[in-house]
């Protein structure tokens, strides 16, 4: 399984802060994003960043591994 986390404005639009998605062999970060964006288009309108296992992920083609923790995030507004 892939653990998908949402925070702040994205979590509010989705209505939850975490999801479990079944892992498929050869699943990329982009595949996961596309799958979830189709389910939650309003939330993904504001998604600007992704993280895999707590690290910024700028390459959307990277392959995910079973048990990965992925976050799709809106622009940050801390400070």
């Amino acid at each position, binding site marked *: 399984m892939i653990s998908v*986390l949402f*925070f*702040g*404005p994205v*979590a*509010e639009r989705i209505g939850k802060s975490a999801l479990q998605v079944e892992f498929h062999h050869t699943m990329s970060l982009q595949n996961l994003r596309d799958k979830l964006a189709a389910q939650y288009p309003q939330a993904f309108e504001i998604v600007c*960043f992704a*993280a895999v296992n*707590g*690290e*910024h992920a700028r390459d959307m083609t990277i392959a995910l591994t079973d048990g990965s923790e992925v*976050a799709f*995030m*809106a*622009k*940050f*507004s*801390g*400070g």
Partner: protein
Amino acid sequence: MKAAVRIQQEDFSQDEEISALKACSKRMGGIGTFLGCARDFSEGREVEQISFDAYGSMALSEMQKLRSDAIGKFALLDARIVHRIGTVSGGDNIVFIAAGAEHRVAALEACRWMIDELKQRVPIWKKEITPQGDAWVVPHP
């Protein structure tokens, strides 16, 4: 001594943070600080409170990297970053950054760089709670 990089609900003491910074070296000739506070007015409306959400583990890790990067980039003797989460009211402290260097230019430039980078790199979001309703903050340049 408290950790140099922290995310916490409770308020912090600027004096304690500066004392901890100064304790690392007597070669420190300049300290630049930034204190971010909650405003009670934003985008033409009153703000009653600000609440924060964070990807806690990643935010802390990014802040630790940010401190290390700043120390390397500006040859700092030490640096500290503290960010509050939870809910704060107008006038309350939100974030404190301190950079200590041998001379003032590096300290001031590092401090400015760290708060700018924090806003770009650290997964924290703020929501303004107003009499007209709540709204997530759209980042300012």
